[in-house]
């Protein structure tokens, strides 16, 4: 069972990294919209697993994306941040429910899932663009990019989620 989940996480890590750098980093929709779909890793990661491993893995995924796209450590900082704040966001969206053993992401309502994903994306993109643009005079540009690219990421992530979800019988 442990080896199984380990295998799935490794596979997810590699595939999301490749999809991000080979497809979505060169999308350049309207010249600047490159959705960051690799954060689905944080969304999909099992809830009951060790938090330390989770944060380190997310950080590493961000760092790999950084190395490939020459944006050293912006992605890593943003992904590490959402990995750390995920429990807070989950408690906010799902209430105390999520602390029970039986809680599963698939059993929650659609609205809750989307809110959770949207919150992850907003926190991630805000950190990302603040670090990338790095000036307070351009805060409007930061917000604008967060909104537009965040929306694109949200849409694509939802498509990916519905594509790879396990069907309920």
């Amino acid at each position, binding site marked *: 069972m442990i080896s199984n989940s380990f295998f799935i996480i490794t596979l997810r890590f590699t595939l999301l990294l490749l999809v991000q750098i080979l497809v979505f980093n060169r999308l350049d929709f309207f010249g600047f919209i490159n959705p960051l779909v690799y954060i689905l890793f944080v969304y999909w990661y099992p809830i009951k697993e060790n938090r330390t491993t989770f944060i380190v893995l997310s950080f590493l995924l961000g760092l790999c994306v950084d190395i*490939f796209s*020459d*944006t*050293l450590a912006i992605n890593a900082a943003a992904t590490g*941040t959402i990995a*750390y704040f995920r429990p807070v966001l989950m408690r906010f969206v799902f209430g105390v429910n999520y602390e029970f053993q039986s809680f599963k992401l698939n059993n929650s309502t659609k609205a809750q899932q989307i809110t959770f994903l949207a919150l992850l994306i907003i926190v991630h993109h805000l950190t990302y663009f603040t670090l990338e643009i790095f000036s307070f005079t351009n805060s409007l540009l930061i917000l604008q990019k967060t909104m537009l690219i965040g929306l694109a990421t949200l849409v694509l992530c939802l498509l990916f989620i519905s594509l790879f979800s396990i069907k309920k019988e």
Partner: protein
Amino acid sequence: MQQIINFLIRYKTFLLYILLLLISFVFTFQSHSYHQSKLLNSANYVTGSIYKFSDNFTSYFGLREENESLLKENELLRYQLYNETPYAPPTDSSNVTYTVVRGNVVKNSFSRQRNYITIDKGSADSIEQDMGVITDKGILGIVENASNGFASVQSILNEKSKINAKIKNSNHFGSLVWDAKKYTTVQLIDIPRQAPLTIGDTIVTGASSSIFPENIPIGTISKFDLDISKSFYVLDIALFNDMTNVKNVYVIKNLNRPEILKLEAKTQADDQ
């Protein structure tokens, strides 16, 4: 002691997060002020090979256009060749100032604040830091790092990029920078107020750069305005290169560069 250990255990996730955040901040701030990291960039062996592998597939889609642009360039070169009389191929290598290596773009980016391009030639083809990279239409950037088989190029679409450039017909020179807004436009700053300007004038590389040869085309003036001090112009330059679609590049090495740098360093040392 016991309490310190308890504290560490209790807040271990938080401390880990802070540690990772600090590491990434160090990298980020370093990349703001210095050259990018030597090892962790898209030109190392692993990343370069993956980009090369994907480029092997995608490069087929643009073959026709590539062919067309290469033919056009050949036509131009032949024209120059036949009109230059008497033509003698450079046989004596001591007369050669620049050497040229051709390469292919395997990764391009233009939508960030600091854009880098990865090409498939590296130190194995004697490519090193601070060599100029151009295409048949105009300049592209400067080599920032080279591994054995790949090199990463700091694009002119990079906040940190600063290249000497001049107006072709009046020889007034300034610095070419990018305000990170549009990938079709870069800015030429520090042009003195008395320079005569016309929209549509051609901008080329200047003579005071030890990286690029003089007179490599860059773009045309699309807009000009005085800066805050009211004594210098800020020019918007429409690039000749379509930065979203670059494939074949030439890397230029100035063989006199070490000599120029040595001389400049000596002059500066004498000054002090």
